[in-house]
């Protein structure tokens, strides 16, 4: 029975004492019905005894499979529920493999649609955003069809999805490409019958350094305040940038606890990897499907 490591003199609430003695809730925020103003205390994560567990985790695990990491909000967290969710995710992936993709990759998704001819609907688009953890994980594909911008949100683990293909695997300079809504349509247009491009096995994911040109204002958001890397010079009058500076929060990058509360710690990620590692080879084999080019060593 592993106990939460809490300094004896620092016990502030009786709930911490009880959780030391109740098996199965160690290391977990005790979410019993508390009064509204009551404080939720998050106990430290207790890693497994294996000292090499962090080293065994691949470097890119959290980038390729981000939805396996649970959502960081402690009010919704429960180890058992996360474990059951991961089991379901792995079961679904064994039936329909989900390839590696990033925001900026061009993908084709086929869904079962009772109203479509041939009962399947295929859509090609650029991934502009992906979000949520676990079985709720989704991504948005954008394309311009007949001069009309179309965005479709797909739930990755929905059984209606027949296949997800990555036509071009690449990253962009930003984590979210929502500014494509205000960019010239050419930047969001991709042919619906696009062929999958050659993907190098084992090569790092290329970063597309393209700088997108935005249409004149009004926009959906104040892009000058968002610190975007992937857009051309916005060409706005000086007052916009002055106002943007007032809204900047330069101290936030030094706020260590704010960034900690938004992340899952290293040891926990390694534990999650350890849990799913029996299924990892199967997932890796389907990670980069499509035309693959083997890079042969040169003889010279």
């Amino acid at each position, binding site marked *: *029975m592993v106990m939460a490591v809490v300094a004896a003199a620092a016990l502030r609430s*009786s709930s911490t*004492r*009880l959780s030391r*003695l*109740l*098996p*199965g809730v160690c290391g977990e*925020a*005790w*979410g*019993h*019905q*508390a*009064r*509204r*103003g009551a404080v939720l205390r998050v106990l430290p994560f207790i890693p497994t005894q294996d000292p090499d567990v962090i080293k065994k985790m691949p470097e890119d695990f959290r980038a390729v499979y981000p939805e396996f990491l649970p959502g960081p909000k402690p*009010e*919704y*967290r*429960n180890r*058992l*529920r*996360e474990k*059951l*969710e991961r089991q*379901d*995710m792995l*079961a*679904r992936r*064994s*039936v*329909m493999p989900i390839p590696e993709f990033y925001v900026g990759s061009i993908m084709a998704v086929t869904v*079962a*649609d*009772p109203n479509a001819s*041939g*009962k399947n609907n295929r859509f090609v688009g650029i991934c502009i955003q992906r979000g949520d953890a*676990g*079985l*709720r994980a989704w991504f948005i594909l954008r394309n311009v069809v007949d001069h009309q911008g179309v965005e479709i949100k797909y*739930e990755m*683990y*929905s*059984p*209606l*999805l*027949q296949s997800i293909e990555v036509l071009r695997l690449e990253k962009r300079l930003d984590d979210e490409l929502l500014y494509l809504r205000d960019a010239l349509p050419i930047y969001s247009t991709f042919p619906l019958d696009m062929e999958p491009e050659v993907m190098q096995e084992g090569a790092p994911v290329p970063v597309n350094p393209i700088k997108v040109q935005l249409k004149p204002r009004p926009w959906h958001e104040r892009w000058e305040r968002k610190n975007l890397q992937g857009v051309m010079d916005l060409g706005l009058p000086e007052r916009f940038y002055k106002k943007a500076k007032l809204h900047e929060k330069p101290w936030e990058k030094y706020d260590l606890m704010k960034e900690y509360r938004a992340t899952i710690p290293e040891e926990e990620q390694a534990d999650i990897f350890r849990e799913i590692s029996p299924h990892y080879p199967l997932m890796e084999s389907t990670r980069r499907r499509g035309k693959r080019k083997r890079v042969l060593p040169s003889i010279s």
Partner: protein
Amino acid sequence: MALPKLQCITHALKNLSLLSHPDQRALVCVNQVRAMSRVKRRHTVPPFWLPKTTRTMYPEHMTPENEVFLKDVIEEKYSSPLKTECWERGTWAKNSMRCGLIGRKIGIYPMWTKDGTRLLTTLLQVSDNQVIKYIKPEDIVQGKRKRYRELGALVIGADHIDPRIVTKEYYSVFSEAGVMPKKKMSKFLITPNAKLSPGTPLYASHFQPGHYVDIAGITIDRGFQGVMKRWGFKGMPASHGVTKSHRRGGNIGSGGDKARVLLGTKMPGHMGRERRILRGLKVWRINTQHNVIWVHGPAVPGGVGSYVYIYDSVLPDHRHTQENHPPFPTCFQDEEEVEEELYDQELHTFREPSVQFVEK
């Protein structure tokens, strides 16, 4: 003029209706309650007649070896086969009521049906449920409602507590049954044919996918809330001359004959932390290894980690019949073999191939 109703409050553990004979009750008049609007909703302390669960802890400075020894003794004591007498197991008859379970809400996640419809399911974990006591129909403290059938009660407990931190009074509740002290207890009314001997463990397989349950729980505490969130008032416009009344309640009376504010007028106040029952929730899936039940919808009262009380549904549409009744009086998982994962027929298990629509 109607006399004010007297509340009979039983005090001290031995008078608890859960456990005692009605003759031992002491009648004490505590409060004259004239209307529900006068009942205090926010209780920061438990009622005075409930026994203290945990004793006052002092630093004991016990050596680590002694701690280990005590843990071993406790494990040995409670892991030995229970001294439960094997009672006769009843069979299902029409209008039988069996006990429910005490679970904890552990989260919400989406599932899909075989035709692709997405639904949200709440996961409820049933951990260490055991029968503490059976109360015969003659010993039930009768409420004011006249009952037309004989009903006994089963006291079910959930989640162990270390016996060392528990008060003697509270411990005596469990010593008869020979079970480890429990954190949460609840009384479930049953027909006598559903009785179970004290110490019987209860598992999630007590319910089955495809059946319906009612869930009682305490809703999330939202604190002091205004009239818009609490009662759904529409408020007033943000501009167009409205002075200082954008989220207020507006008029509170009609004047004239009734020259007063009527009882029960909706006003701001404490919202949440109340017991509510949600009826007719379908059980979609059960995991017998971890004792988890997947129940329809995200609206189970309470936040993640709160306790809920799960009953068989009383709704007329979901009444049990001879053909489709669940294991009665419960599923004895230790004796029979149960599959690890049980799914409803309409549910898409993730191992099945993707949903496809066939061209007609």
